[in-house]
């Protein structure tokens, strides 16, 4: 088995407010995520990213098609627990995932439910809170934290479960620049050093730059995929889809439009500096 997640021709529909017909939020999605891969999913609001991610830990079951996680079909109810333990999810809104009244208990909740030994739990909670820089707040009440602080606690909760795969739905939406950088660094470290498969949903194009692969969703379908460099060189397509490119890519694109002869696929500051130096 080399795939952590296999999504085969999945359709999913929602019943909308006083409408008879179902609204199809996923329209035939095919996606395979390799073990140890760092995958980023981008797409405009309402393109189906969260709906897709909720299929991976069996919150939703496909109306058509199937989802296989770590070799288990999400339709197999007897595997539900194993699936959720394999694929941990950090949700878009941290308010929805606070379960305890003290931060460290909240982080311990997952491992406790998995039957991890108390001593090991303490160790995991401590290192998870450290990883998100919330040690100071371990005895605080999570619902009284600031938005960004709650988000960090939610991430720590998943880290403490040590899943094989982590799905993060816009984990940095409310973080300050350092917090964002730290979360992304933490994710990358988990990926590189512990081989954890990462599926990251984000609206910050900069966060996709170091991914192995970027997938672009539009109206319930995958419309483009490739390495970050391949995807971000399609500046016009991305803009048409309501998306964007990293700021340096944008600048490179603008400079090219103004007549400079530079590469079209620049995604980091260093690359742009190098290109511009060659023009002198």
């Amino acid at each position: 088995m080399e795939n952590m997640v296999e999504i085969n021709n999945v359709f999913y529909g929602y019943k909308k407010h006083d409408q008879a017909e179902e609204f199809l939020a996923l329209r035939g999605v095919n996606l395979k995520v390799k073990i140890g891969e760092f995958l980023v999913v981008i797409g405009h609001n309402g393109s189906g990213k969260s709906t897709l991610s909720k299929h991976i830990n069996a919150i939703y079951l496909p109306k058509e098609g199937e989802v296989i996680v770590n070799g288990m079909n999400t339709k197999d109810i007897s595997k539900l627990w194993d699936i959720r333990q394999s694929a941990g999810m950090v949700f878009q809104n941290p308010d929805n995932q606070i379960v305890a009244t003290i931060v460290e208990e909240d982080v311990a909740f997952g491992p406790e439910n998995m039957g991890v030994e108390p001593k090991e739990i303490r160790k995991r909670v401590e290192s998870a809170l450290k990883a998100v820089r919330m040690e100071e707040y371990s005895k605080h009440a999570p619902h009284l934290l600031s938005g960004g602080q709650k988000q960090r606690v939610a991430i720590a909760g998943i880290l403490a479960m040590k899943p094989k795969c982590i799905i993060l739905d816009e984990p940095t939406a409310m973080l300050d620049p350092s917090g964002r950088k730290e979360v992304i660094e933490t994710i990358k470290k988990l990926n590189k050093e512990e081989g954890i498969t990462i599926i990251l949903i984000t609206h910050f194009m900069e966060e996709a730059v170091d991914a192995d692969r970027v997938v672009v969703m539009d109206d319930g379908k995958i419309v483009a995929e490739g390495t970050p460099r391949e995807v971000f060189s399609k500046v016009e397509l991305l803009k048409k889809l309501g998306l964007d490119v990293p700021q340096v890519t944008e600048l490179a694109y603008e400079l090219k439009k103004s007549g400079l002869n530079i590469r079209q696929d620049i995604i980091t500051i260093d690359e742009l500096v190098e290109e511009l130096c060659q023009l002198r």
Partner: protein
Amino acid sequence: MSIKVNNLTFKYMVGTPFEKTALDNVSFEIKDGEFIGLIGHTGSGKSTLIQHLNGLLKPTSGEIYIDDECITAKGVDLKRIRQLVGLVFQYPEHQLFEETVFKDVSYGPKNLGLDEEEIESRVKWALSIVGIDYDKYKDVSPFDLSGGQKRRVAIAGVLAMQPKVLILDEPTAGLDPKGRDEILQNIKNLHKKSKMTIILVSHSMDDVAELADKLIVMYRGKNIIQGTPKEVFRNVETLESIGLAVPQVKYLVQSLNKKGFNLNEDIITVSEAKDAILKALRREKK
């Protein structure tokens, strides 16, 4: 309207083991019509601060003046203050609750006791500012809108009160890039046309660099730096050490200058960088 904050201190949960000084002797002034960017690490006190500006929270000590009126004095009519100072919360769409977009946006003006005609014209105006087509959406349920559309309707609800000061707490968090650009453009145009005083709370250094006249930087409950974006972003090391950053193009300019380009270090937006780079290269060619 101008705003003056004097020695504002605020503690949450006073007298419990969790007592937390969220604002620590904060003082600043905002002039009428200024566009302020309020930045700071998560938990630095931004949301706590702005909730004081329309009287939702009461200072532990210190005063706040809106124009010349002290709004922290006893017996102030807070309803009137909230009408003057409109506050759009973080994730405001969670507060949409009416059956239609029209009803939701008209909720505030209705509570002001305005007549039907005035209410309708305000709803139309507010929706046009946020770029929502009135005829197409007025009867739609807010729950059937996309995330970005909901956000805009929620902002329109505050605009419909026609406040003199508009405060937005991370209005673009969670929006896709297009939605982000559109809302920021709407706010920018609104500021240009109405000369409203605006306070934008944001974690995007790029956005405040683009929009704000002045920045206020919070760190652990204190406002430690303020000035124009160009002035504030000169403090690269300090900003990084307190959880913030400078716009990405500023890092680019620094790297280019290390390689011998002679660009203005105060560049903070993409369009400034583009112009400066083109000029530098053309100058060298000659």
